[in-house]
């Protein structure tokens, strides 16, 4: 059983479209993070959320942490080809625990 379920698994959209992807769990997290990974590189941290209901914005990306700290969403406004990549969510279940990762969402933005 995967601790963190990400959906959809694959998404292909046209440049300029908006999209929302999800990260869900039955477990409570002390913090949740989103990373983006490009081919041949390691994941790069986009955001960390720690408070239930928290919303953070990074340019055209909006991240929300669920009120119960069990889930998160990522919304991209006016997607660009440069947004193409693998989006991974990851959570800490305790103060000294390692990060547990979901399987990721592969996003392709067509010009």
């Amino acid at each position, binding site marked *: 059983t995967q601790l963190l379920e990400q959906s959809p698994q694959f998404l292909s959209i046209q440049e300029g479209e908006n999209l929302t992807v999800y990260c869900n769990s039955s477990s409570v997290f002390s*913090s949740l993070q989103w990373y983006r990974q490009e081919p041949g590189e390691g994941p790069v941290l986009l955001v960390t959320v720690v408070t239930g209901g928290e919303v953070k914005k990074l340019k055209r990306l909006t991240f929300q942490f669920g009120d119960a700290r069990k889930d998160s969403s990522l919304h991209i406004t006016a997607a660009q080809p440069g947004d193409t990549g693998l989006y991974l969510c990851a959570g800490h279940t305790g103060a*000294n625990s390692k*990060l547990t*990762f979901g399987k*990721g969402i592969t996003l392709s933005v067509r010009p």
Partner: protein
Amino acid sequence: GAGVSQSPSNKVTEKGKDVELRCDPISGHTALYWYRQSLGQGLEFLIYFQGNSAPDKSGLPSDRFSAERTGGSVSTLTIQRTQQEDSAVYLCASSPSTGNYGYTFGSGTRLTVV
């Protein structure tokens, strides 16, 4: 250094040989993590270090896998008697400490066992 450095970037080895993968974390980061990523899979946790100690080795797939960290800095992941199922990208990350910190990842070592 400025980032997390992993070497080699690519390694092709014959089944049954031993391999060593190296990770040089960001200077001053006390926590160091090893993950494995296979095609179509997320990141699979292997082991983490706080200083030179490994509080959690629960992700190591078998006793053929071992890791050490010396001087609170460089870490080496060793795979003995490699098998084809060990083929994957091995990623190392570091963070200032354990807790809700973000990780900085290296670019990984792509291991291919033939």
